[in-house]
C-alpha cells in the first residue's frame, strides 16, 4: 500500500511525514516522532495510557489511524510544560500529592486531566473520578490522583483570580 503524506502540529511544531495508512497514531508518535511519553497498555482502548490531546479532545491514540489525525493539532505529555520550561501545575501537583507510582499511566492521566480542567475548571471529586474513568492506574488506587487534580484546579483558579 502506498504511504500517506501526513501533516500535523505536535506540541506546537509542524510535522510533515509519510506513514502507512494503517499505522496507529500512538506508533507514529512513539516510533516516528520519538515522543515516548504516551504509552501502550491494552490495545483495546480501555486503559488510556496512550491518551493525547487532539484538536482539544482527549483521545486514545491506540485507536486512531495516523491518517485520521492528518491535519490535527496534537499535544502529548511532552508538550505540557509551560513555555518557560517550568512544569505545568498538574505535573507539579501529581508529584506533590504522590499521584503516581510506576509512572506508566501518568502521561495519559495528566494529559487527560488537563483537558478535564479546561472543560470543568472546578470539578468535584466525583466529577474528577468520572473524568478520568477512561484512564486505568494499577498502582495508586486513584485517591492521590484525584487529590492532585483537585489541587491543580485550586492553583489554576487562584492564579486566575489573582490575575483578574
Amino acid at each position, binding site marked *: 500500500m502506498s504511504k500517506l503524506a501526513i501533516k500535523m502540529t505536535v506540541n506546537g511544531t509542524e510535522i510533515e511525514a509519510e506513514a502507512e495508512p494503517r499505522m496507529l497514531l500512538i506508533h507514529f508518535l512513539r516510533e516516528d516522532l520519538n515522543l515516548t511519553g504516551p504509552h501502550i497498555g*491494552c*490495545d483495546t482502548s480501555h*486503559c488510556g*495510557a496512550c491518551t493525547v490531546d487532539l484538536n482539544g479532545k482527549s483521545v486514545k491514540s491506540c485507536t486512531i489511524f495516523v491518517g485520521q489525525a492528518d491535519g490535527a493539532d496534537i499535544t502529548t505529555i511532552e508538550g505540557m510544560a509551560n513555555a518557560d520550561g517550568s512544569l505545568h501545575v498538574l505535573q507539579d501537583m501529581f508529584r506533590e500529592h504522590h499521584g503516581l507510582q510506576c509512572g506508566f499511566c501518568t502521561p495519559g492521566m495528566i494529559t487527560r486531566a488537563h483537558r478535564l480542567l479546561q472543560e470543568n475548571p472546578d470539578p468535584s471529586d466525583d466529577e474528577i473520578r468520572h473524568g478520568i474513568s477512561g*484512564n486505568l492506574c494499577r498502582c495508586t488506587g486513584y485517591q492521590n*490522583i484525584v487529590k492532585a487534580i483537585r489541587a491543580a484546579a485550586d492553583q489554576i483558579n487562584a492564579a486566575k483570580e489573582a490575575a483578574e
Partner: protein
Amino acid sequence: MSDTAPSVEERTAKLEGLGTSRKRVEDVRFTQGRGNYVDDIKLPGMLFGEFVRSPYAHARVKSIDTAAALALPGVKAVLTAADLKPLNLHWMPTLAGDVQAVLADEKVLFQGQEVAYVIAEDRYIASDAAQLVEVDYEELTVLVDPLKAMDEDAVVLREDIVDQEEVGGHGPRRHPNHVFTWEVGEKDDTAAAFNSADVSVKEFITYQRVHPCPLETCGCVASMDPIEGKLTVWGTFQAPHAVRTVASLISTIPEHKIRIISPDIGGGFGNKVGVYPGYICSIVGSIVLGVPVKWIESRMENLSATAFARDYHMTGELAATADGRITGLRCHVVANQGAFDACADPTQYPAGFFNIVTGSYDIPVAHLSVDGVYTNKAPGGVAYRCSFRVTEASYLIERMIDILARKLDMDPAEIRLKNFIKKEQFPYQSALGWEYDSGDYDTAMNKALTAVDYTALRAEQTANREAFAKGETRSLMGIGVAFFTEIVGAGPIKNCDILGLGMFDSCEIRIHPTGSAIARLGTISQGQGHATTFAQILATEIGLPASSITIEEGDTDTAPYGLGTYGSRSTPVAGAATAMAGRKIRAKAQMIAAYLLEVHDDDLEWDIDRFVVKGAPERSKTMAEIAFAAYNSVPPGMEPGLEAVSYYDPPNMTYPYGAYICIVDIDVDTGVTEVRRFYALDDCGTRINPMIIEGQVHGGLTEALGIALGQEIDYDEMGNIKGGSLLDYFLPTAVETPVWETDATEVPSPHHPIGAKGVGESPNVGGVSAISNAVHDAFAHAGLTHTQMPHDHWRVWKTAERLGLLS
C-alpha cells in the same frame, strides 16, 4: 563550628531521612513523560519479534510451514522448536525446577502457547508474517479441571516428563499429571485435636485464577554484540541478576558476558518475576541475526500467557472449643500449576509460604498438604502483589474463622480477639513452622474497631436487616472483618533460595569527596519509589541529605548481586543491606573524624549528620567534612576513600500485619456490591516514608477490590480463555474505586536493622479477605456459609436467589 551549626530540627529536616514523607525523585521524569520503559528503547538496526500462538489448549503440532512468512519482504527469520533444538534452547528451566517449552515441541499444552517466533524489520511486518505461518494441529482431549487432573483416566499432559519420578525435588509423583505433594505439620496430632473438638467446621474454598496485569506488559530488547561477544538485555525484569544467571546457564554464555538491565518498569505485581519464552527467543534472534531484537507482548498475550496467580482449591477445617477457642487446623490444597510448573517460589517451598495459613491465631496444632497438578492452562503461579502464596493462605484462614464464628454464633471480631497470638508470645513459633518476629494484634484490632465504631455498625446492620425483612429496602449491608499476618522478606539463605541462589540482598555505597553519594542495590523498583526511600534510610544512617544520594538499581554490570523485588522483600532485605552498608560507612567515618579531631574513636558520638566529641559539642566533624577528608587525610594505615558493601542475609522473615474493616451495600436484585467504606490499619514496623506507604496501601486495596469483586482468568471446557482482554478483565477505574481510609500502629521488627517490615503487599492480602467477608456477612443472617469468588454481579445475584431473597 558549633557556633554556626543549625539546630537539631533544621539538620534533621534537611536530611529527609526515616519517617519523612519525602517527595519522590522519580516523579520529575515520569510527570514529563521522560521515563525510560523497555518499549521506549530504540537501537540501530533493531528488529521486532512476534509470536505465533496456539489457538488450542491441547493439540499435537503436526507441521509448521513458515515459507509464506519468510517470503514476506522485511521478514528476517521465523524460529520454531526445530530451530532451537540444535542449540538445546527449545526447553528452558523454570524457577520451580520444572522445564517449560520455549517454542512448542511436538505439542501445545495451553491456549496462547508460543509456537513460532517471527522476526521482522518492524512490528507491522512481524504481525503480517505471523498471520502467514501455517500450523497444522491435531486436537487432543483437554484437561481444565484441576480436581480431575489425577483421575485414573485423565489425559496425560506432560509426555516430555512422563518417566520423570519427581519435579523440582519435591518427592515422588503419583500420576503423570501430578507435580508435587507438600506436607507440613503434625497429621496425627491434628486428627486427635479434631476428634476431641467440641465443634469443627469444614469448607471448600477456591481462590480463582487471576492475573497481576501491570499497566505495562512484559517485553525486552536483546542485543548481542558480535565483536565483544557480549549480550545485553533490557527487559521487564523484577529480578535482573537472577535473569542473568539463568540466561548464562541456559545459553552457556559466560555470566560476565551478559548484562541485564531493568529500565523503568511500569508495574510488576509478580508478573515480571518469571523468565518467558519471549526473552529467550529475542536473545536467540539477536545472536543469530547479529542485531538487536525487541519483543513486546500485547495485553491479550499478557493475560493469556505470562504468569497467572492463585488458582488454589482449598479444603479448610477448624476444630474449636464450644466457646470459640481454635484447637486445630487442617488443610488440603489442589494447586493448579497449569501446563508447566513455573511458580516463582523458593526451592524448599513448592507451595510458597502457604504454611502461614494459621494466620494471626495461636493454633496449637495443624496439618497442611498441597498437591500440585498440571492442566491445560497457562503456566505461572506468581505471587500477585503478595509474598509466595500468602494471599491464598490468608484468605483461607480469614474465611474459615468467619465460618467458625457463624457456627458458634459469635461475632467475627470477638472470635479473632479470642484467638490472637498475644503480644507477650512473640517471637511466636507457629504450628506449621514459622517464627513470627513481633506484633501486638489486640491493640491493632481494638484500634480498628474503635475507629469505625464497630458496635454502631452492627446496630445499623440489624436495623437494615429488619427493614429488608419488611420490604422497606432491597439493599443489604455487610461488614467484613479481616486480620492478616503476612510473611515477607524472603529470606534467610538457610531456608530460602531460588535455583540455588540464596535470597540475600545487597547494597554498595560510594561517598563522593564533596559529601554526596551513590548507592547501588540488587533490587529494582516498579513504582515503589526505591530511589526515594532507600536514600532516606541512608540519610538517617550516614547523615547526608537524601537529596544528595543517588540510588541506582537494575543494571547487573554495576549493581551488586541481589535477588530482586517481589514478595515485599526490598525493604526487609535490601533495606537492611542499605542500613548495614551505611553503618560500615559510619564506622570508617568515625575513625577518620577521630583522627581529624585528635581524639579516640570512643570519645565521639553520632549526632544526626556529624560526629561530636563527647562533652565538647563545639568540636565536631560533619559527614560532608569527613567525606572530603577520606580522600586526603585518612589515619595512617587506613585505605583512602569512603565506600562500603553489604550483602545482607536476613536472620528471619518479617511479619507485617493489619486489621481491615470493610462495609459493603449489596443491591440484591442486581447483585451489585458497593464498597461504602474501607478502613485499613497496617503495621509494617518502622515507617520509612508515610506518604509512600499510604500510596502503596491505596494501590494494593484497589487491586484487592478488583480480585474480590471481578477478576478471573476463566476457561471453558475446551480450554479457551473466556474474556482475555481488558474489556472483560476487571481493573477498577476511579469510578469503581472507593475512598480508602488508612491508619497504622508501629511495632518494629526486632531483627531488622531499622525495624521495617515491608508493606506493599499487605493491602492485597488483607483487602481481598475483608471485602469477601463483607459480602458473606451481608447474607449471613439468611444462612450463607460460603460462596466462591469473584463476587461479581451474577454470582452475588445467584447467592441472593439461592437464599430466597429475590421476589
